[in-house]
């Protein structure tokens, strides 16, 4: 909102989604510019993951429009989305690694399937991507079930960036990692945006991570984006919800339903 309207990569307008009588998203609007790194913060269960999946078309919103490069993706059936999907990389909150494939094939999946890269070459790329998330070649031939939770997360991250997509979504990339590794991942996300020029959308509960990677921070509450501003300004947002959230206080306008 502080930026000019040109170069909008992703635009959400009044997106609503309910599961039964659980109204998760209700009028969510958000603009993301090309090359920008936006962090979404918000309480658990407020629909952050649902928001990402709606943009990816994995969840079809009940109403509203989602434009990616000016094209309304909510109108496209899933099988026609292949072209658009090629633009995306996604780190799922739960990892979502293919447990029937070894780690390196997971990482190289997009390259093998869509770019029809020879297996030898894809293996090389996979090992290189694994190294960038702090995993050695030893891991490449293991299966996901043989890895620790944090290692799985990093493999998943490597898979999300393996095809050098234009748009990358990270759903809680640093959750479950030790502080040092978390910082390595933060650097990696910054690098992806700054060097590769990717547009990224990151969900995190980790304010240190948010400060490091975000150009802009958006806060989701009650199905809407209630605040959006640049990362430096977040301490002085003047928004009671944001203040409560970033200071992790139990007292404030956000009531936790127990």
């Amino acid at each position, binding site marked *: 909102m502080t930026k000019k309207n040109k170069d909008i990569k992703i635009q959400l307008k009044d997106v609503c989604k309910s599961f039964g009588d659980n109204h998760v998203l209700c009028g969510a609007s958000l603009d993301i510019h090309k090359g920008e790194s936006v962090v979404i913060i918000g309480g658990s269960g407020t629909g952050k993951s649902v928001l990402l999946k709606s943009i990816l078309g994995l969840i079809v919103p009940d109403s509203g429009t989602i434009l990616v490069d000016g094209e309304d993706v909510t109108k496209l059936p899933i099988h026609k989305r292949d072209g658009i999907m*090629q633009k995306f990389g996604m780190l799922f909150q739960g990892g979502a690694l293919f447990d029937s494939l070894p780690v390196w094939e997971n990482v190289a999946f*997009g390259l093998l399937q869509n770019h029809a890269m020879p297996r030898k070459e894809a293996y090389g790329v996979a090992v290189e991507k694994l190294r960038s998330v702090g995993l050695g070649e030893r891991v490449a031939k293991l299966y996901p079930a043989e890895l620790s939770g944090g290692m799985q997360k990093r493999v998943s991250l490597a898979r999300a960036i393996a095809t050098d997509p234009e748009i990358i979504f990270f759903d809680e990339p640093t959750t479950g990692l030790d502080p040092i590794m978390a910082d390595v991942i933060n650097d990696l996300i910054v690098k992806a945006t700054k060097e590769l020029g990717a547009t990224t959308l990151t969900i995190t509960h980790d304010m240190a991570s948010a400060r490091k990677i975000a150009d802009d921070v958006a806060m989701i509450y009650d199905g809407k984006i209630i605040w959006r501003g640049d990362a430096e300004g977040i301490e002085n947002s003047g928004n009671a919800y944001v203040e409560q959230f970033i200071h992790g206080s139990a007292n404030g306008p956000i009531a936790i339903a127990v």
Partner: protein
Amino acid sequence: MNAILEPIQTTGRTVMQFFASIGRISSFAGKGLYHAVLPPIYWRLLFRQFIQIGYYSLPVVGLTTLFTGMVLALQSYTGFSRFSAEGAVATVVVLSVTRELAPVLAGLMVAGRVGASIAAEIGTMRVTEQIDALNTLSTNPYKYLIAPRLIAGILTLPILVLIGDIIGILGGYIVSIYSLGFAPENYLRNTWEYLEAMDVISGLVKASVFGFLVTLMGCYHGYNSGRGAQGVGSATTNAVVSASILILIFNFIITKIFFS
């Protein structure tokens, strides 16, 4: 008034749901088959399914048909010897095995073994968002997961059943020769004399249909699995139960088409 309407409503709802799910399954099957014939075909995955569905089912199918052939010889001998028609034992064994027992029993065994594991595997992929991940990696799950399993089911079951036919006949032969005291030449002559190509072919056609049904039910229930471990559990049960019932229903239908 309500007491009268209630059962009618329930019946109506059940019938509606029944037809709705037939519709959903048909559309699912249509999409799966469409992607099975449309290039590109994932040969590596197809090969893996051939091994999973075909090769690893050999012991189960072999044992089932062996003992079925053996018990068939014993039972029909008991029956036919009462009116001195022992010569018919060989014919009864070969016809029952090729036309009915090998395809149906192999189908049911494979439903338990393969149907369950397909549903569990795909269901777990659904629950752990691996199917979503496939989509985001621009890979069509129908092409990647469903099509190879359907093709493998359709093509491998006839081969399994053909092997089952041979083993079943062999089982009958062993019992007849070594336990019932038949002369080998006579028994073999009676085996081939009344056997027609159509008997075997109908069995193989059944096998192919059953292979399709088993893999389809595994894929369908796994793909639409509910959330959590419980969702996968009931997907597995539903896959096996529905495949088994469909096998029995289609067995009747195909038999009717072939032999009446």
